[in-house]
């Protein structure tokens, strides 16, 4: 491959890496905005730790588990601890004669940013009541082991890949995986105190919708890298197409959630529309390169429309998810995976079945793994803070600090004399 072309391809993946990185800020902002003031430090702390823990574990064993090399088609494999150094430029160019092959640095860092993402999804769903220590242990093990194993099934050339499963950028492999783990956590933790009362559901509004909105825009921003980088080259036609389908699906999701939430609730709930944007993005992720613009709008629009229904459904089931992570990532992740069998160039009953098999086997494995892990933590060190700690807020009880301090005995106001 021509050096200029190689460099341009590599450059795009590196830039996509940066964009996926900033999705962690997107998640942190969104989740911080949707929890109560008294749990803000806690959620920010978790999200800061997650990205670092994710990168370290993915470096140490995750990458080796996810890309075991060899013949492929398997269920489990492991190559090595750490990653190999790439060769020099000449050998990289030579290896890329048939198409762009990334240097191992680039491949690792791009994939590493993805890995931590799925843990971040869990963080929002279990917010406001989980013990910090248990959560960090869960995340470390989950990202180190579970995520790369199911990832290998498809992206590492494993059995699902051989079977013909299609998941372009991770509607299943990242989003539904995060969502299934979140569901396990929600089930074992129980709802936040006071959420489901005899008199019905008590809404617990987030403390800062500006931060939530900031988070959603940053996620959309990062999604250009998430989906666009998943082309795995800077191919002029493909990346552009993915940008178009991704954006139009997000736009469709916005409008879908806008309409359905208005029909259902007779008002304009910003938190629903924000979830709708994300629903559209998650929905298109499995088939972003297969869809026409109109199909992208349809997939995104349906995903957005699902959001208010799904949020209400989970609340009916008393599955308490402060940020709507299960609706966005689990439900729309499943929808996006199946949509590959319904819309676009691969549509067909056969493909739909394979998609179903893919998302359900990965879902089962992930759910079981997460459930058992959370369960072990629950019966050993415990996963839930005490009711008193929950009432005070995790910021005081876990961090002994407050997100918005007034640092003087009194909040000195505008005109202190």
């Amino acid at each position, binding site marked *: 491959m021509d050096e200029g072309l190689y460099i341009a391809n590599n450059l795009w993946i590196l830039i996509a890496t940066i964009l996926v990185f900033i999705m962690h800020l997107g998640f942190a902002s969104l989740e911080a905005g949707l929890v109560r003031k008294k749990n803000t430090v806690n959620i920010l702390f978790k999200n800061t730790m997650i990205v670092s823990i994710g990168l370290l574990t993915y470096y140490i064993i995750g990458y080796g588990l996810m890309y075991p090399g060899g013949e492929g088609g398997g269920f489990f494999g492991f190559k090595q601890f750490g990653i190999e150094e790439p060769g020099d430029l000449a050998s990289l160019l030579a290896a890329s004669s048939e198409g762009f092959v990334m240097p191992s640095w680039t491949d690792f860092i791009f994939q590493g940013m993805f890995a931590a993402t799925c843990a971040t999804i869990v963080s929002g769903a279990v917010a406001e009541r989980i013990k910090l220590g248990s959560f960090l242990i869960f995340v470390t093990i989950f990202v180190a082991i579970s995520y790369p194993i199911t990832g290998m099934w498809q992206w590492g050339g494993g059995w699902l890949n051989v079977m013909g499963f299609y998941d372009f950028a991770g509607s299943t492999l990242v989003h539904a995986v995060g969502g299934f783990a979140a569901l396990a956590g929600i089930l074992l933790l129980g709802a936040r105190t006071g959420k489901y009362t005899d008199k*019905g*559901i*008590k*809404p*617990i*509004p987030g403390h800062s919708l500006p931060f939530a909105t900031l988070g959603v825009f940053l996620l959309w921003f990062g999604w250009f890298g998430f989906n666009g980088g998943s082309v795995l080259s800077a191919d002029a036609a493909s990346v552009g197409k993915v940008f178009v389908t991704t954006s139009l699906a997000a736009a469709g999701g916005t409008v879908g959630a806008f309409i359905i939430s208005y029909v*259902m*609730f007779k*008002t304009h*709930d910003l*938190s*629903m529309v924000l979830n709708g944007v994300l629903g559209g993005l998650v929905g298109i992720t499995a088939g972003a390169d297969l869809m026409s613009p109109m199909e992208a709008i349809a997939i995104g629009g349906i995903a957005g429309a699902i959001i*208010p229904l799904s*949020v*209400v459904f989970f*609340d009916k089931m008393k599955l308490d998810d402060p940020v*709507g992570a299960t609706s966005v990532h689990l439900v729309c992740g499943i929808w996006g995976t199946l949509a590959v069998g319904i819309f676009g160039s691969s549509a067909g009953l056969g493909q739909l079945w394979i998609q179903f098999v893919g998302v359900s086997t990965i879902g089962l494995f992930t759910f079981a793994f997460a459930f058992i892990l959370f369960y072990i933590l629950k019966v050993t060190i415990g996963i839930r803070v005490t009711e008193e700690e929950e009432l005070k807020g995790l910021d005081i009880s876990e961090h002994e600090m407050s997100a918005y301090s007034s640092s003087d005995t009194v909040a000195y106001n505008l005109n202190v004399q």
Partner: protein
Amino acid sequence: MKKIEAIVRSSKFDDVKNALSDIHVDFFTFMEVKGFGKQKTEHIVYRGAVYDVGYIARMKLEIYSTDDAYEEIVKIILNSAKTGEIGDGKVIVTDITEMWSVRLGTKNESAL
């Protein structure tokens, strides 16, 4: 000496303040309070669940006054805070045993 406490609508605060100012009552203390009363509260919708806020934000004024002046002040507040709709609030008067000015160290009338 009397202490007048008035709980009024936040939206009427400026009117009350101006009306008091017209009779040269320029000194008072106020704070934001919340009230449960006959007035129905707003409802809020969040992620499909509707709930009543349950209370209404109000302003509370505290005015220290002489025994001579307080009746007029009460009258002025009653007039200027009134809309006639449910939720207009209350005014109460209590007796002050002693009142001091921190700056002057003086007591009662001379402390105003």
